[in-house]
């Protein structure tokens, strides 16, 4: 039988009864099938076992753990009575089942009591309880007889009461009335399911109660018949696949346009239940989709269900969606969008009402333009996107498989693009009330796919996207004419989001734009945007994904500053991320193994989910290289300066760098540099010793610079910086040993223009870094004598420093305590930052609060007004 084949690909099921589960997808139908007498002996045998498993499953779903097995035995033994017996029956089992029945009986008697005293609130509660109990006791679609009797009686009684209610002027009390209403509503719904049995009971109550199961079964068949075709169709389908034998039942394909929706319903109902064979359902739907759809409505419904079913495959656990399913889903989504584009009068909107489509096809209601189908295109698209990311996360990025997978991004982008067009189309009609949020979400997705890419790549993506839509289609938000320019596109998208959304989406839009600008060497623009966004103050309140984006953006801005040659800004910007030593974690580019902290598996899983796919990574080695080089250029002169004059406060720019340098200096033998870090360290040493040429060589021989655009320019820039810093270092280090130094000597030593040398020296003098003066006549630097302090003097200076910092700390403490109400100390330099927009664009790239995902895991609320400051000038 084909089931063995299918059993193979369902290997992940963990239940002990593997064989039974193969069929569980059909559980609904199979329940019924059991009683189908036309089926062959063999067939029915199977189905019974299947039925066991299905009821087993139902149990399992309700009771977890050990009891589950217990009950599965129960069920089997129960079925023993009416069907071919298994040989597993035991006494213990019986008692458990009996207990259930007893409970049921007692509930029923409670209901009867309630009826006697006309207490509807009691009846209502008991009725609910009854329904819960009966589910457990149900076998197939047959409910226990006593139950049927109870509900039938109850209905009668209820009708009676209602009738009475109308005649008697006396009112029921409130609770009672409420109970009655509840029962009334529920019972109608409920009893529909058992209509056949109830009818049987009504017809002849005694006979019904006494009849045993053999009699009961055929009675149900009438209902069963109506669903039978589905099953047999599946059966046929299976058989076709497996052996292409003639179906034992010899049935014809029953896929008719009329029945599609019923099939769908059946599938939807089984969705989410355990052990439904999703692949099987998908196959059914594929056939459905191929064979029938006639009306757009049907097509849309089938596709919607099909796509969600495909996504279900990937749901749960870490397993990602199979590749073929993803592609199929992508295709389906494309065709769904195509249908929607073609059939303008059918719209898929969220929150539309479900159509009762069992019997007749819904038509466009009178006086309305559209046939609204419930569903959400944007959710489907988002899901498709997420699935791609997940699979990219799982694939080893250094394989060709990864590259192959990555090509799918193009088609995904196309889908997103078409989705966007579709939503724009929907938004045009105000009567549809498509929420702004859906459009925002889809635009956000589109932005997410382009912001980190170079302009050329975006251009290609865009071209492809435009190619696949019809020529006259145009987007309002991102007009076709603008699509060629990636910068403009990003600008449009993020501005749109900025204007039309709030909270996280807004912040993300900003960050994406900044990231893109920084990537394309627009340092000042990106920096100004970053500062006016005031995100650094509020980023801690955002969710982790946004914090990661913020970190990425920050790093990108830093790299951009470096490319511009702004070493100071670059170092400052990168400090937060690179100085922490947790770059990987902060940029979500790899999980850190934390030695001392306990990470629960749950956290670890979340952490893994957050990881970015490889193609979005920022090269960490390059980052480190840039950071260390910048640190070197700033730290080495500083070290030289503090080394010679003890009264300068020991200021440390980068702790990480210092630590590395110390470590490097401790080594007794230093071999030729191997990695980036070694290169920078040896260059630092050379620079400290005044050998700027050697330092330049070391830095230039770092290979990773090749990853930067315009490598040569960057190298020249670095060489220039090294020259200057070398000169400064030299002056700091050797000043105490000289009386005068000729500018010409310095200029030849550092191969700098003498004008440049004097400018550097002047600057140092003017900033009081160097106790010297220039002599214009002889073109020399004259170092002043007697500036070295005695020990007592420098101690006195330190003391005075400490004293003033003590006062400051005191003041600050008081200010905090009093919440700033005692503004006696508010000095001019800490004017409130409220409306200072660009005021903070001062040199340092603004203050930053750490986007530390670990620490802020709890706080995900966004405080709304935070971005309001952005427009302030």
């Amino acid at each position, binding site marked *: 039988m084909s089931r063995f084949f299918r059993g193979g690909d369902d290997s992940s099921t963990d239940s002990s009864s593997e064989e039974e589960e193969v069929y569980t997808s059909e559980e609904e139908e199979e329940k019924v099938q059991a009683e189908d007498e036309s089926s062959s002996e063999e067939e029915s045998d199977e189905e019974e076992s299947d039925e066991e498993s299905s009821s087993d499953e139902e149990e399992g779903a309700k009771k977890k753990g050990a009891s589950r097995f217990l009950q599965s035995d129960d069920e089997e033994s129960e079925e023993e009575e009416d069907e071919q017996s298994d040989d597993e029956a035991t006494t213990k089992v019986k008692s458990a089942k009996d207990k259930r029945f007893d409970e049921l009986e007692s509930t029923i008697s409670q209901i009867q009591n309630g009826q006697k005293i006309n207490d509807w609130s009691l009846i209502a509660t008991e009725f609910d309880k009854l329904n819960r109990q009966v589910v457990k006791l149900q076998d197939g679609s047959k409910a226990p007889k006593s139950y049927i009797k109870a509900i039938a009686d109850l209905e009668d009684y209820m009708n009676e009461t209602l009738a009475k209610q109308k005649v008697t002027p006396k009112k029921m009390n409130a609770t009672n009335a409420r109970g009655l209403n509840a029962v009334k509503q529920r019972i109608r719904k409920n009893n529909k399911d058992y209509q056949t049995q109830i009818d049987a009971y009504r017809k002849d109550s005694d006979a019904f109660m006494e009849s045993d199961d053999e009699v009961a079964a055929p009675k149900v068949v009438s209902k069963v018949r109506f669903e039978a075709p589905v099953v047999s169709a599946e059966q046929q389908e299976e058989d076709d696949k497996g052996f292409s034998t003639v179906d034992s039942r010899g049935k014809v394909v029953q896929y008719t346009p009329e029945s599609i929706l019923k099939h769908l319903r059946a599938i939807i109902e089984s969705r989410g239940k355990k052990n439904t064979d999703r692949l099987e359902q998908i196959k059914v739907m594929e056939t459905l989709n191929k064979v029938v759809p006639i009306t757009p409505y049907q097509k849309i419904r089938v596709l919607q269900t099909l796509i969600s079913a495909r996504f279900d495959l990937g749901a749960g656990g870490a397993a990602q969606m199979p590749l073929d399913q993803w592609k199929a889903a992508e295709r389906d989504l494309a065709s769904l969008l195509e249908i929607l584009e073609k059939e303008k009068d059918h719209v898929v909107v969220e929150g539309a009402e479900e159509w009762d489509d069992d019997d007749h096809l819904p038509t466009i209601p009178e006086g309305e333009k559209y046939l609204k189908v419930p569903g959400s295109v944007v959710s489907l698209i988002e899901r498709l996107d997420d699935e791609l990311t997940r699979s990219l996360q799982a694939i080893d990025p250094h394989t060709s498989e990864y590259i192959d997978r990555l090509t799918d991004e193009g088609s995904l982008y196309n889908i997103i693009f078409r989705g966007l067009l579709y939503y724009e189309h929907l938004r045009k009609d105000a009567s549809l009330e498509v929420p702004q949020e859906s459009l925002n979400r889809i635009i956000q997705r589109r932005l997410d796919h382009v912001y980190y890419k170079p302009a050329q790549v975006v251009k290609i993506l865009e071209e492809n996207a435009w190619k696949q839509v019809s020529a006259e289609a145009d987007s309002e938000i991102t007009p076709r004419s603008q699509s060629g320019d990636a910068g403009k596109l990003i600008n449009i998208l993020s501005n749109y989001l900025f204007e039309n959304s709030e909270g996280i989406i807004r912040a993300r839009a900003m960050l994406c734009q900044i990231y893109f600008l920084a990537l394309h060497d627009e340092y*000042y623009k990106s920096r100004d945007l970053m500062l006016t966004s005031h995100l650094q103050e509020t980023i801690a309140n955002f969710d982790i994904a946004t914090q990661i984006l913020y970190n990425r953006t920050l790093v990108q801005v830093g790299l951009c500053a470096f490319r511009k040659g702004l070493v100071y800004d670059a170092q400052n910007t990168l400090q937060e991320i690179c100085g922490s030593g947790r770059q990987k974690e902060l940029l979500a580019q790899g999980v850190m193994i934390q030695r001392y902290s306990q990470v629960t598996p749950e956290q670890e899983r979340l952490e893994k989910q957050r990881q970015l796919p490889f193609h979005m990574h920022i090269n960490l080695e390059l980052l480190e290289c840039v950071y260390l080089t910048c640190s070197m250029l700033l730290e080495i002169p500083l070290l030289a300066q503090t080394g010679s004059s003890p009264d300068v406060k020991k200021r440390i720019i980068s702790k990480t760098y210092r630590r590395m340098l110390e470590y490097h200096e401790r080594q007794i033998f230093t071999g030729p540099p191997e990695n980036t870090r070694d290169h920078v360290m040896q260059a630092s040493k050379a620079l400290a010793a005044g050998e700027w040429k050697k330092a330049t060589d070391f830095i230039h021989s770092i290979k990773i610079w090749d990853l930067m655009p315009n490598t040569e320019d960057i190298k020249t820039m670095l060489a220039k910086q090294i020259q200057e810093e070398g000169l400064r270092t030299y002056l700091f280090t050797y000043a105490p040993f000289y009386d005068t130094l000729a500018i010409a000597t310095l200029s030849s030593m550092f191969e700098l223009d003498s*004008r440049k040398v*004097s*400018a550097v020296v*002047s*600057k140092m*003098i*003017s900033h009081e870094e160097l*106790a010297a*003066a*220039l*002599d*214009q*006549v*002889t073109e020399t630097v*004259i170092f*002043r004598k*007697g*500036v070295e*302090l005695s020990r007592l*003097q420098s101690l*006195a*200076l330190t*003391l*005075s*420093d400490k*004293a*003033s910092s003590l*006062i400051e700390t*005191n*003041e600050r403490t*008081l200010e905090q305590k*009093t919440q700033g109400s*005692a503004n*006696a*100390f508010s000095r001019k330099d800490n*004017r409130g930052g409220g*409306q*200072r*927009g*660009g*005021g903070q*664009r*001062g*040199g340092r790239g603004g203050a930053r609060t750490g986007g530390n995902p670990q620490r802020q895991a709890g706080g995900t609320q966004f405080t709304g007004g935070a971005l309001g*400051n952005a*427009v*302030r*000038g």
Partner: protein
Amino acid sequence: MASTSPATNGDAAPANYDLVLKLAPHLDRHMIFPLLEFNAGRLKEDETDKAREILAAKYALLKKTNMTDYVANLYCELEGLKEPPAEYAERRQKVFHQLEKYEQETAKITELLQRDDVVNNLRSDKVANLEFLKKEHDVTIDMVNALYDFGQLQYSCGNYADASELLYRFRVLSTDNDKVSYATWGRLACEILSMSWESAMEELQKVRESIDTRLANNPLAQLQHRTQLVHWALFPLFNYDKAREPLLDLFFNAGFINTIQANSPWILRYLTVAVITNRGRAKNAGVQQKQMKDIVRIVKQEAYEYQDPVTRFVHALCIDFDFEEAQHQLVLAEEVLRSDFFLLAHADDFVDSARHLIFESYCKIHARISLKDLSARLGLNNDDAEKWIVNLIRDTRLDAKIDYKEGTVVMNHPPSSVYQQVIERTKGGFFRTQVLTAAVAR
């Protein structure tokens, strides 16, 4: 109020830094007019094309105003006609008509406000005033508003003084906050155009207050209004000496300096010139130094957005310490200044102060300077340079001597004593602690 920027264009090198185009959108059309006039005045004989362009710009500028006679003349000049077309006469007629109409409407209220007995009964409470006028003299709110409209019309016709008077009266009576603030703006424009700087300063202060308070929760409008105010303030800044210090204070106010940085970096030129020329004139040297420091910082920050010889001069001198470059930029800056409407009168002043500045920082860094070299640098001959330096040493009390035989100036930089430093650092300690204890005790 702002008009579309007229089509002026640059002539020689300094005109590349011509800011009229950038200034224009933030000025009122009546204010742009003198700027254009100035540009036209600088043209040489042979540049008829440009003259014509400016003429066209003037015409476009004033077309919408009610100065019909002048516009008609301009039109004739532009088209080479003898007689202006009839429509101008018509318009003129209409304007006169309107003027008359408003005159009548406001006659009563004007007359009332000139009567002593009425004015004496007015209090500071506007609502009460209006009540009073209504009761006693049948003044309606429409009449008050007519004052406003009449003022606008007068302004449009170029009768600034009258307009100012009318708007003043309106403001006394009206309770409509929006209109009052418009009227304040209007009065400011009138005062600027009629060059009565003192009252202009008063109005400016009022406008500033209303921006700070009324627009506090609308940052965007605040930004725009501040930008406009900064531009308008340029008129008194360079034409009225007494206005300089309060205006500089205004410009360096956090809100305004941010406005300049964010929205109109070209103002930096004017600000820089104002700060540099203010050297030595300011009563408080500390303030002046602080402003200088601020301007250096801002010039540095904005270097990527705005540069002209003036800012480059500051950059070269105070950031790069490249004296040769600074010297070079100073020459260019002088040219720029001479071709700028606002700065023309201050060019010499600026050059002089800039020289001082150069020399000061030069002396700070150098221990010995050759007199000859210095004179070349200052662009003076030897004797003049010597005199200049002697004056300078005397004025600024520099610790310097001239060695005549060697032909050098020798500076003496005494190193700041350690004891001095310790004293400096602990200076405020006692006072601050006292304040602290007082705060704790509260």
